[in-house]
């Protein structure tokens, strides 16, 4: 893995939030790299800045200072609209609470990111079917999220995350809302995506068992990466 080019390069990254009159430092001068095809777990106590760091890498939050290069693109210098376009093509998101759109069926949820591509309806359906098949839900395509179990919903979310064939997959506590069996299924799936499809995975987790799936575990404590 070490021989591979870094897909994520972070330099002197700092981020703070304002709470009332207080300025709270969340991340402080963080620098590190993630190699292409890596499976990295970010651990740390609540409030340590794990999700903030993940959000910054995924381009859904802005840093105060420092630079982030993902796949050769300096994302810290992109405008909001440019970032949106970049995310659509380069990042796949897996959330703790799945975040599926409840009024859309499983296949429609998976199709959602493809609306931002130039694919035709039939191509979109074909892609969505393929990834739903990959996560073992080809028989649940017309089910609404409310008709699926937590584990199934998270699998739909994984299908949605990979349907655009993104450069990186970011997962924020992907097993946090699942029972043990479902959590293990989801972790296996992510591991397969990493090992078989070569996807770079960055996962935030509290769970040491989930972290053990990753190749590298980094810990954040009080905004400092160890």
């Amino acid at each position, binding site marked *: 893995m070490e021989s591979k080019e870094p897909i994520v390069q972070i330099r002197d990254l700092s981020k703070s939030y304002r709470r009332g009159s207080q300025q709270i430092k969340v991340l402080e001068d963080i620098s590190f790299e993630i190699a292409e095809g890596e499976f990295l777990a970010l651990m740390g106590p609540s409030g340590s800045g794990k999700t903030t760091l993940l959000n910054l890498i995924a381009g859904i939050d802005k840093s105060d200072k420092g630079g982030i290069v993902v796949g050769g693109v300096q994302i810290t210098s992109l405008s909001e609209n440019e970032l*949106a376009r970049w995310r659509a093509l380069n990042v796949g998101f897996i959330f703790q609470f799945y975040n599926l759109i409840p009024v859309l069926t499983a296949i429609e949820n998976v199709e959602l990111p493809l609306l931002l591509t130039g694919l035709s309806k039939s191509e979109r359906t074909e892609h969505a079917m393929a990834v739903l098949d990959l996560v073992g839900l080809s028989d649940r395509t017309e089910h609404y999220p409310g008709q699926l179990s937590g584990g199934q919903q998270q699998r739909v979310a994984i299908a949605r995350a990979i349907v655009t064939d993104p450069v990186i997959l970011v997962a924020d506590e992907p097993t946090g809302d699942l029972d043990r069996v479902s959590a293990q299924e989801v972790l296996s799936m992510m591991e397969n995506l990493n090992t078989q499809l070569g996807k770079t995975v960055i996962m935030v987790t509290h769970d040491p068992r989930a972290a053990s799936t990753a190749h590298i575990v980094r810990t954040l404590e009080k905004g400092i990466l160890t």
Partner: protein
Amino acid sequence: MIFALKLIFKNAFRHKTRTLLTISSVVIALVAFGLLRTVVSAWYAGVAASSATRLVTRNSISLTFPLPLAYKDKIKQVKGVTVVSWGSWFGGIYINEKNFFANFAVDPGSYLKLYPEYVITPEQKTAFLNDRRGAVAGIKLAQRFGWKTGDLVTLKGTIYPVDLDFVIRAIYKGRDKNTDESQFFFNWDYLNESIKKVSPGRADQAGFFIEGISDPLLAPSISAEIDSLFKNSLAETITETEKSFQLSFISMTEALLMVIQLVSFVIIAIIMAVAANTMSMTVRERIGEYAVLKTLGFGSFRIAGLIAGESMVIVMTGCALGIALTYPAAHAFRDQLGDYFPVFNVDGRLFIFYAAASALVGLVAAIFPAWRAIRTPIAEGLRRIG
């Protein structure tokens, strides 16, 4: 595009009760707006139906003061006047005061000549002209009381101390949409002869004269000439176009009309507030979902489009139902209050206004919620989930 529309429709009807209540508010408000605008139009119906080739002469003091019948001969001499008719407001009551309708004594031949918009069959016209006790009723009035030709009708005098018995000889239909079909008129000679018997001092006097003129452009000069004929007499006159005459009635209630017009536009503002409130609640509840969409790469324009689309679906559904329900509502309104609004026709152009106002409301109601959804940082939006 189809996918986006599907999402918009599904979102719009996600909270069925709230959406249906919002749609109901839009429908009620639009129907109320339509009825109020129709009331205003009904008020002006007399003005709209007035002819540019008819002048009305009345006593300069007030319409309640009569004019000598002999004026007609002098008026006939004025150049440009083609026909002179005259009449008096009888104000009779049919059975009881609840059965109010307009009733006039008129000079039959000249009056019908001046009002071709009252369409009567030749047979009925002849029957009316040949019967001194004959009367003509508008078709709506006849339907209201179940009258048909040959029926006997008695009106109790209020202004004049006589009760008059009539035979319905003709029933007229309006030639135009805005022709009042609820009037009742009868032979002025019959009233005059009856008055002579009980109150001779009030005989041979007309409430007003109506002149037919050859050229509408001559109306000001003819009016001035007629009035100059009776200057410094015991009964000076005011002559004006029929339109001005009708407007003088409306001016008495102008303040009320202005209030109605104002209220009708306040209604539009209310719909806007209701729709904006619904969209605000919706976006507040779904701020996490919009954050997810933004995470997936949906830009500001698309997010705003989804919210505006949802707002438009709700308001335009209300608009469509409002259009569908305005006619039945107007019909019910006319049934109940037709006595006061003999011409109560919904103007089709109202629906263009409905659509334009609804589109505007839909868009305006979405502005603040869309702005909020766009401005909320993704990370903050995602924190609202769970």
